[in-house]
């Protein structure tokens, strides 16, 4: 069932300790800062977080990591010039890292939403990141077996929602939003605008409302 909520606090209230939480965004584009702040306020801990990065500067996901709420990161690019909170936790052995090539991260998230039990991809074949994984030659190329990444909750940012929960995004802020919405049991979207049902063109919907559970408008 779809709920429209008044505050980000209500939106994230059901997130339990130990949950796997997907967080949309690539860098700051599409990162749902307000939902992350609410998650920080809400106190859930022991989280596994799926995001392309591991937080930047002193905001959003970086703060969640700083506060010790994140047990494990699944991401492709944790190390950035301003990823000091992750760096510190990682070097202190206080956070687990599953490093996944970016395209495999995206495809594994997509597989979870699409009900695919696993797939073979050439990305990573013969590298450190395929160590211990099943491989085989397909279409004449070495390929690595990868499995879906499911989540309890997805926190994403979109531009506009309609009354049935359909979403559209804005430019490259779209990035992980659509695939995370499909991969999580419960998807929470923060949007800039809510329009009545019928206010979005059916040809242009990027995330159908079937993938969305909670919507909160953020000014």
């Amino acid at each position, binding site marked *: 069932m779809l709920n429209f909520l008044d505050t980000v606090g209500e939106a994230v209230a059901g997130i339990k300790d130990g949950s796997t939480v997907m967080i949309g965004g*690539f*860098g700051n584009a599409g990162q749902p800062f307000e939902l992350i702040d609410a998650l920080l306020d809400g106190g859930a801990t022991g989280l596994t977080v799926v995001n392309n990065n591991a937080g930047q500067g002193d905001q959003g996901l970086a703060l969640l990591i700083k506060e010790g709420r994140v047990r494990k990161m699944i991401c*492709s690019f944790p190390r950035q010039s301003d990823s000091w909170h992750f760096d510190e936790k990682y070097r202190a052995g206080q956070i687990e890292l599953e490093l996944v*090539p*970016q395209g495999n991260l995206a495809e594994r998230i997509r597989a979870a939403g699409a009900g695919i039990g696993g797939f073979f991809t*050439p990305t990573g*074949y013969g590298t450190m*990141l395929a160590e211990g994984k099943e491989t085989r030659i397909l279409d004449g190329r070495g390929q690595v077996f990868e499995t879906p990444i499911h989540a309890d909750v997805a926190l994403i940012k979109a531009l506009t929602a309609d009354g049935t929960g359909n979403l559209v995004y804005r430019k*490259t802020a*779209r990035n992980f939003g659509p695939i995370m919405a499909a991969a999580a049991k419960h998807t929470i979207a923060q949007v800039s605008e809510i329009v009545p049902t019928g206010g979005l063109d059916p040809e242009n919907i990027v995330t159908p409302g079937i993938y969305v559970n909670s919507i909160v408008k953020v000014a």
Partner: protein
Amino acid sequence: MSIESNSQTGTQAGIRTGIQSSDTPLGRDDLARLVARDIKPGSFVNLGIGQPTLVSNYLEPEQNITLHTENGMLGMGPVATGGQIDGDLINAGKIPVTELPGASYFHHADSFAIMRGGHLDICVLGAFQVSATGDLANWHTGAPDAIPAVGGAMDLATGAKDVFVMMTLLTRDGASKIVEACTYPITGIGCVTRVYTDKAVFLTGPDGVQVRETFGCTLEELQDMVPVPLKAASADGS
């Protein structure tokens, strides 16, 4: 000295002296200009973070090149400045960019499907090392205290029809980055087809390393720097 004059000289020099097309090593911008010139009209191209992004400064409109950025866009334009800057419109290096007419946006799985599916003509990447058979190492130094980060490097390396590498030929310590076998953790096996360096352009693949042109050195001098057998590329080896 601009690469245009270099490359004209180069053609003549190629006839005169073999493959030496410049009397001096190329700077980063000249190298970027050379890569840009070598991209076939109508190509779909991904430029990696760092030195490869310089290539976009030298693409000519009449080449009709479409740039892909793996965070979800085809038809990326130049870096945004001033009022153009929009936090929702960034490239893979998280730099604000612009949108050209004919652009399209898509989500991350669709974007990497473009790469993994072999739809990009060329991807230009930086590198720590390239092996004689085209193995690429560009994501991880392997240092015990390094925090690993891979991003889209492995997807780009395995996905594009041609993978061009741009790098200096030698490390600061004077070691060749073209090696018999990579000592850094690899990004992809046998994926590099061409290596653009300050001292020469190399063609790599299952048949070993060929030299298309040299800058400020002869093939013999180049061979002294590089620990794998080199041979001059055939005339049509561009």
